[in-house]
């Protein structure tokens, strides 16, 4: 690949991040809710980025991060509801929340289609989330100015 192009693009991104020019972001959540702060910091980062006028191309959930997507979580009433928080943010800003299918299958995160395919008696995916493949993560890397990982 031509080195000049690469350098030029790198500069553009740096300028964008230095100033207030909006950038296109991909966010990757690698850890489960409540167990690990990464699910909170990813959310706070997303909120802050949107407030600043940046675009969020996609939020991708991988590893135990897929557990953010179960609508069956029932945290204590005086605690934050991590799934609802994601679903509300997605609805408000029309965000694309993607759960990795391979990681979801291992951990029992199902939508209706997966439920039928695997002959299970229930599904648990929350509103605003969709299950898809790892290609969605790679595509985010290609399309975004920055791909930001939250995890250990």
């Amino acid at each position: 690949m031509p080195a000049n192009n690469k350098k030029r693009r790198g500069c553009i991104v740096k300028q964008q991040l230095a100033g207030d020019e909006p950038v296109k972001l991909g966010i990757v959540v690698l850890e489960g809710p409540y167990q690990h702060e990464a699910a909170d910091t990813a959310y706070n980062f997303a909120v802050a980025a949107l407030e600043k006028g940046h675009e969020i191309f996609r939020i991708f959930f991988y590893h135990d991060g897929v557990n953010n997507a179960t609508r069956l979580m029932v945290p204590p009433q005086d605690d934050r509801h991590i799934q609802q928080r994601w679903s509300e943010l997605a609805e408000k800003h029309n965000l694309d929340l993607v759960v990795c299918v391979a990681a979801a299958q291992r951990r029992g995160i199902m939508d209706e289609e997966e439920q039928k395919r695997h002959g299970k008696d229930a599904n648990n995916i929350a509103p605003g989330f969709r299950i898809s493949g790892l290609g969605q993560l790679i595509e985010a890397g290609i399309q975004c100015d920055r791909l930001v990982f939250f995890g250990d």
Partner: protein
Amino acid sequence: MSEVKNFLYVNRKAPHGTIYALESLEVVLIGAAFEQDVALAFLDDGVFQLVKGWDTSELGVKNFQPAYTALGDYDISKIYVERESLEERGLSEDDLLELTYEDEDDDWAEKSSIRIVSREEMAQIMRDADVILSF
């Protein structure tokens, strides 16, 4: 999606005990189909992923080490291993898997994919990457 980006997969965790290494490898293998410029970095406990001779029989988990040796078949020819991480763990290049690729610019000669780099060089490799996937 016309422009090729430099993807760097950063592997920092031991192969067993958590699922990070296995699921990272799954991303690498899927990502190979997207025809980007891909490199892998191994540092910290991640260097243990490349130590040859895994025996997972008593762990009750699948031995996925053969997948690393297949990386060359996925056109992945740049595997950076941090020297300091090896030394801190009493390891050397001799302890690592032989990972090779066929160099299409050199009559498909089989060459080692592993490049031992210093911590300083690793920092530069990260600076040069367009996309860092950190597992």
